[in-house]
């Protein structure tokens, strides 16, 4: 599979039919790859004509000598460049490879800030083990430097928010990396509820709970029962008998009715099975995250029908992830389990991983190039419920596009252009 498509070099070979027309828009061509564009420079952005020697729509087969047109923030054409005319007001871009803007299925960018100092670490509030009422939209900093950093490598949408590391840390959101602010950029303000089971959910503090993985499950179950009772009473009781609003139980009630799934971070097979057990007991919709031991329990995961947001391929293989495998993504794919690849949460350096790089190593270790690209675009968008807007190059979808000067997964390839809603952002800086 890996050799099915040979990526051409950065030089674009124009089809004959295109040449006369390109002469007409030559001035546009010359400014096309101007570096150093400033975010927000264009309002409204110029329409874009993006030529790719190879265009990956992801929703369909790769297109040689392809063209993507974007106008008013939306994709208006995806197909062969040959014979496709466009007006002279388009800004023309070209690259060896063009993909949808990447969708990071789970990270903490914008919440766990670049500096790793107390004032920029918002991912876990340690005052209580269960705090599902904490909203990501109140914590996300669109101006953190890591937002622009990952965007410069092609990431245009991220599922971020409260992190793993305590039983229930809070909520997550899905946001476009426009860098303006959480309200303006958000796609899904209350996406999931970040839950951790296993050793990472426990505390070592004397006299505090949960101190064991089993206690963590007991506490989560108790809280879900409370939330179910609360929701029942709120729904059925007469107005004067309704219990007072409780933000924490309200959030868990959304998990119970399926409108805001639990995102359960688990790595050990024991903890994966615990998550599935709780989901079954409460008829929950959950998303499994991490899953280093997934190869041990593939059958159980498959039978549950729940999707997996898989740990970064290059995650450190220690502690709960001591047995992680770079081949797990390929195994999930082969087993038919819906999954996406994440940048995850990092407590030290690198402060965030780049989901493109993680998918690359998975691609080279059994997943294959096209499935790896899907795991950070369309499959991630579907898992997050935003595939109507992002994740593939299709007419009507958002103008989120990433441009590369070669195979996006190669270490030596650079991202040379990024657009979100048709607006261009600075890509990776060029060599000195």
């Amino acid at each position, binding site marked *: 599979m890996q050799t099915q498509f040979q990526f051409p070099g950065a030089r674009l070979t124009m089809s004959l039919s295109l040449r006369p027309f390109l002469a007409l828009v030559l001035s546009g061509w010359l400014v096309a790859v101007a570096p150093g564009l400033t975010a927000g420079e264009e309002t409204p952005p110029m329409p874009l004509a993006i030529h790719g020697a190879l265009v990956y729509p992801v929703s369909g087969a790769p297109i040689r000598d392809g063209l993507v047109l974007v106008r008013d923030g939306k994709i208006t054409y995806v197909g062969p460049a040959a014979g496709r005319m466009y007006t002279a007001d388009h800004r023309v871009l070209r690259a060896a490879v063009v993909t949808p803007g990447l969708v990071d299925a789970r990270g903490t960018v914008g919440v766990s800030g670049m500096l*790793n100092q107390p004032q920029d670490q918002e991912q876990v509030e340690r005052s209580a083990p269960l705090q599902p009422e904490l909203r990501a939209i109140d914590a996300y900093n669109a101006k953190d430097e890591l937002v622009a950093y990952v965007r410069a490598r092609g990431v245009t949408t991220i599922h971020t928010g409260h992190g793993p590391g305590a039983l229930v840390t809070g909520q997550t959101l899905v946001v476009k990396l426009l860098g303006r602010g959480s309200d303006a950029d958000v796609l899904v303000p209350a996406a999931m509820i970040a839950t951790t089971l296993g050793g990472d959910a426990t505390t070592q503090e004397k006299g505090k709970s949960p101190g064991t993985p089993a206690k963590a499950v007991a506490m989560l179950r108790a809280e879900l029962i409370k939330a179910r009772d609360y929701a029942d009473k709120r729904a059925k009781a007469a107005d004067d008998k309704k219990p007072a609003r409780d933000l924490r139980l309200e959030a868990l009630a959304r998990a119970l009715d399926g409108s805001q799934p639990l995102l359960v971070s688990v790595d050990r097979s024991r903890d994966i099975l615990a998550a599935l057990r709780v989901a079954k007991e409460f008829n929950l919709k959950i998303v499994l995250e991490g899953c280093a*031991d997934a190869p041990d329990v593939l059958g159980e995961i498959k039978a549950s029908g729940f999707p997996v947001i898989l740990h970064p391929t290059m995650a450190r293989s220690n502690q709960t992830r001591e*047995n992680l*495998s770079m081949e797990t993504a390929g195994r999930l794919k082969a087993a038919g389990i819906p999954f996406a690849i994440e940048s995850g949460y990092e407590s030290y350096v690198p*402060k965030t991983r780049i989901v493109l790089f993680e998918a690359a190593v998975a*691609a*080279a270790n059994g997943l294959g190039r096209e499935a790896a690209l899907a795991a950070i675009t369309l499959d991630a968008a579907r898992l997050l419920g935003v595939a109507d807007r992002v994740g593939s190059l299709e007419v009507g979808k958002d103008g989120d596009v990433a441009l590369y000067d070669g195979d996006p997964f*190669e270490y030596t390839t650079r991202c040379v252009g990024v657009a979100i809603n048709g607006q261009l952002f600075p890509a990776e800086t060029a060599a*000195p």
Partner: protein
Amino acid sequence: MISCLLRGPARAAVWVLAGLTVAAQAQDRAVAFRGAQIIPIEGAPIAQGVLVVQGGKIVAVGPVDSTPIPAGAEVREVAGKVLMPGLVDSHSHIGGGGGVGADGSGPIQPEVRAMDGFDVGDASVAKARAGGITTVNVMPGSGHLVSGQTLYLKLRNARTVDDVLILLPDGTPAGGLKMANGTNPRRDPPFPGTRGKSASLVRERFVAAQDYMAKVARAKDDPEKRPARDLALEELGEVLAGRRVVQHHTHRHDDIMTVLRLSKEFGFKVVLHHVSEGWKVAEEIAAAKVPCSIIFVDSPGGKLEARDLDVRIGAILEKAGVLVGFHTDDGITDSRLFLRSAGMAVRGGMSREGALAGVTLANAKILGLEARVGSLVAGKDADFIVLSGDPLSVYTHVEQTWVEGAKVFDRSLPQDHLRAVGGPGAGDPRRPHYCCFGDAWSLIAAANGDQ
């Protein structure tokens, strides 16, 4: 199902025997690896080459059509593969991590030896072999101004730490001295609280070492006049005498300048490690003729000192004329993906040749081992790796790792494949099922009918 499960142990037994055969061969008879592209690092790549090894050394390297293969040599056809020197990692924490260095009792502990804390059976050692690493500098951590003596190792097949040591002509194991500045060694007393205090504490100890060495010299052979033996000052004395190189953790540009200043004052040889802001003082580093061992991590930050790190650093230092090697800092980055550093360096604008030297010959020079390792040249140790393709490509795998003519990793063996990619059992090398019954990964594969 049961019959499927039994296939695993049976296969494992065969692999074990195969492994013994290979080990026993090492290696009186010459072996010629023929037909691969050879990247010797010193000298241009050879499109179709032959590498001849014997007695643990490289005997010949050259094009297939002009390099004679000794009579009686075993010939292994490796057409389609790429051969390059075994990788040299100039900064790693494999083999037990925190156990190899100083404790919390004080900021300067040069007497602590990594050798006394290194665990050769740790899974990280086998993973480093899977990444193609054949020579490695195992370091104590960076939480001290001086955290102890480092160990330069050859990752031979090994039972004890003695099996992996590199012995100097005087019989002592090769290694450097780990030092650090900036925020990591700053703690509550007796550790320093500021940068100025950090440098001052280091200067005091080096002055004491100068006095100590002077007393030893004056005493000559008179035991009555010799000062009482001081292990710490003795090691700093080794550094002052140029017999031990300082391997210095440093990030910020001003901390880098402090290292250069101290190195000049006391005349010790030093290598700068991490050097996150080295691009800001590249000219000064070049002028001091001090090498750099740098790391590629995937985003800036994570600590204040790393906020300005940049993938272009290798290119900038190379352009300034600095000797540049790369390191894993394992577990900061994974030894199995060490070649990725070279790829990222090229992404940042470094030359392909410089990037490949950065994981081989440059690091050999940084460790003072370039006479033995770092390039495929006749007379050097037969340390090499067999790759499935271009060393800078993500799709390339390390297929075999050889140290001194003996194979130490073979991806085609299931237990080595497990080391290379991970999976059930990869995290702990000493689980009982692991030695005798094959790996859990292949059992699962067999049960699923995968193989």
